[in-house]
């Protein structure tokens, strides 16, 4: 085992604990449904039916029927927020409910709220009427008609569809969350940044309870195109845009049979992003100081004990470099005052070579290796929601041996979990496509108590 350099450790004096989790993703509308689906070997990846995605590979892990939440939001405003709103509201509602926090339990100004929000996209249909009204007979834009008059056809609230924080603000209204807050954007690291900020605010006494989590992007032609072009999803997932790549990736087919797709999405063979699809989801954690949670008799699901961050972009694939991921992991271990040998479970943020190399550099890969799990193929690449959902899954799954083999990464045999029913210490990674990466250490509930 390699030693972790101790520097600027910031121990959590009273400890911050998790008292609620909420999640919605392609496998279900709650954390329970999600873990059950995962354990039973389901994949959330299905054919995209709500728009023609043939050019884009045709498959994704969508949330098909997000739970309805009663809200008095104006329908027009709700439309600009799209599925983001449903994902955030559903995850937050479940997390609060599971934590036993109802209206009036905390002063609204003592409720912190932090989230990593995936990119939002404007609705093209809000803008096109202005173009249509301003076309000349040849089908080109007549600027003399567009600027003085045609632009008035643009839907006035269209810019709200580009602001990642609007949905967040709507959730703060819905749940009366008036305390310290921040929105981070948009990838895997952003969800962990949100949790880190929540922990800091609780430690400093600026809030008595904090919600922290993340929301993915909504699956749309633009999010698929963006993910494909950024290399977040594999060529198959973006087959149409990758026509030029087919010579290099002959397996890439836009009309890939669903059964073959499902098969490909379960087994997380490392060192490739092929067959990774975009996923939708939202996940939220409720965090409280240990003493406060004990004082109100809350169920303690786990604890948070360290964070690490870094940023260095790989020239090859725009992802974080091995060195950056290693720095983030070591930072988290250092803050938690843990040796690598004390980690039982690693929830990977990706299946990229850089992350796997960083993990292998730090952790034992022999018989005492921690279990490594990747949900990215089963649930899709969920960006800011991914690490938070992974943390929630790790704390909620009914026993370590419940992780089916096809979400485990090599080395899957001989790992140290045989002696434990539940993971005691979990490393959760979040990787961005822009070089940023984050890691956090989550303690299982038994450890916290």
């Amino acid at each position, binding site marked *: 085992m390699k030693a972790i350099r101790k520097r600027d450790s910031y121990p959590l004096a009273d400890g911050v604990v998790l008292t609620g989790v909420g999640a919605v993703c392609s496998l279900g509308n709650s954390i329970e449904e999600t873990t059950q689906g995962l354990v039973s070997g389901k994949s959330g990846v299905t054919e995209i039916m709500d728009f023609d995605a043939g050019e884009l590979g045709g498959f994704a892990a969508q949330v098909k029927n997000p739970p309805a939440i009663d809200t008095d939001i104006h329908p027009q405003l709700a439309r600009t927020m799209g599925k983001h709103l449903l994902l955030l509201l559903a995850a937050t509602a479940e997390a609060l409910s599971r934590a036993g926090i109802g209206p009036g339990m905390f002063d609204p100004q003592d409720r912190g709220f932090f989230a990593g929000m995936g990119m939002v996209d404007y609705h093209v249909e809000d803008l096109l009427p202005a173009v249509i009204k301003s076309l000349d007979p040849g089908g080109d834009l007549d600027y003399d008609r567009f600027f003085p008059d045609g632009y008035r056809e643009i839907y006035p609230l269209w810019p709200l569809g580009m602001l*990642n924080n609007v949905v967040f603000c709507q959730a703060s209204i819905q749940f009366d969350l008036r305390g310290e807050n921040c929105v981070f954007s948009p990838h895997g690291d952003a969800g962990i940044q949100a949790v880190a900020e929540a922990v800091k605010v609780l430690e400093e006494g600026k809030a008595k309870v904090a919600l922290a989590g993340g929301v993915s992007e909504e699956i749309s032609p633009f999010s698929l195109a963006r993910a494909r072009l950024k290399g977040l999803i594999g060529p198959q997932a973006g087959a149409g845009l990758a026509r030029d790549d087919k010579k290099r990736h002959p397996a890439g087919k836009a009309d890939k049979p669903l059964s073959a797709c499902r098969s490909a999405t379960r087994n997380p063979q490392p060192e490739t992003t092929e067959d990774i699809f975009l996923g939708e989801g939202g996940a939220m954690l409720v965090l409280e100081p240990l003493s406060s949670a004990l004082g109100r008799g809350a169920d303690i699901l786990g604890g948070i004990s360290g964070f690490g961050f870094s940023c260095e972009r790989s020239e090859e694939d725009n992802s974080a470099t091995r060195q*950056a991921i290693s720095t983030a992991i070591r930072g988290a271990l250092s803050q938690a005052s843990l040796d690598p040998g004390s980690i039982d479970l690693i929830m990977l943020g990706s299946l990229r070579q850089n992350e796997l190399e960083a993990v292998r550099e730090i952790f034992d890969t022999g018989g005492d290796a921690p279990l490594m799990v990747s949900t990215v193929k089963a649930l899709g690449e969920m960006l800011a929601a991914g690490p938070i959902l992974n943390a929630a899954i790790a704390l909620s799954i009914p026993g370590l041996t419940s992780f089916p083999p096809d979400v485990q990464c090599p080395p899957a045999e001989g790992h140290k979990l045989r002696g434990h029913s539940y993971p005691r210490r979990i490393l959760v990674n979040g990787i961005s496509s822009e070089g940023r990466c984050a890691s956090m250490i989550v303690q299982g509930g038994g450890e916290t108590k």
Partner: protein
Amino acid sequence: MPQKRKRVVVTGLGMITPIGKDSRETFENARNGVSGVGWLSSFQTEGLPCRIGGQVSDSSFNLLAAKGLQGIEKCSSRGLKLMISAVSEAAGSARLDSIQDRDRVGVSLGYHGENPSVEDLLLLYRHGRRDGWDLYGLTKNGAYSFFNFFRRKPDVATSILSILFNCRGCSLTIVSACAAGAQAIGEALGIIRAGKADAMIAGGCESNLNFMGFVGFVLIRALSERYSSPEKASRPFDRKRNGFVMSEGAGALVLESLDHALDRGAPIFAEVLGYGSSADAFRITDVHPKGDGAVFAMQEAIVDAGLGSSDIEYINAHGTSTLQNDLIETLAIKKILGERAKRVPVSSNKSMIGHTIAASGAIEAGLTIMGMNNSVLLPTVNYEYPDPKCDLDYVPNQARQLEHGVALSNSFGFGGQNACLCFGKFHQ
């Protein structure tokens, strides 16, 4: 509770605004009440009810840091170019290059990415189909390029800054509309206090002076539409205010732990004493009528600084020149300062610069610090017709010489996110 908290100081400062290519020029022009608002020339404004804004001349850009880096030009939005200019100045003044351990230097940026262009809309129309979009055709014809996706994503700007200025530490992108720049600074403060970085580049940038960026604000009637001349349009707290003036710009600070700054002999411009944030949780399109969110953010910043409201000597207001903001902010300041409210000077830099959205909190933080160090209160220009409901000392029209050591800087974002920073003159 955490151990004794690290003190955090400002060791670098930079900005680019409609009234200056750097912080010195911006501050001097602001001291003299110079307005940067003019008729817009960067895009077609004919027929729009508002045709003014605060533009930054391309010749003001300082892009030396990006020179020679392939691909940066294509990936760079105008907002990012503004930010590179501001960070170049801030990093230079902080002598950031002298920090050896780059894993301990991070970037915290408030930004929202680039808007689509009118030409993008035409392409989207051409490639629209009844059942979706011909993305292949859209992206492969060359007009809607791969780089549009880069410029649209706010975090790309953060990553490019990290690369250009060799920052391998914590990197975050904050999206909270007009509060983003201030929140980026507040988050950087927390990261250094928590020992996760020795130094952070923090700030915000924005450029919405393009048709699609601008017209969104025109359509929701947020911009000033009645003005005798462009430079008279931004008139915070004045009875005849009728909307804000859109501007572009960027502001950057280098924050550093005091111990680290002293160890390397860095210049120290000020101390960041506190930060507070809050949510109105009221309505997306309206601020809380009692100013509860603004009050709480200011209160949190003061408490975080270990001070009381009686210690506050100046407030750099959000002061947008909208009917609603200026009224509610005045109310909130009164709640915070009590009977002292009318004696504590409050002014709005937006009266000269206009509203730079995500950049505003960072630019105003820089000007607040420079005001303290020069014992100058920057004025609120165009204050001609007192509003009986806005009855504080807004430092009307003329800068004022006054020594002051503790100041707040307010930023309130669309949707109801509020941020407040507390700065103090540095004392060992």
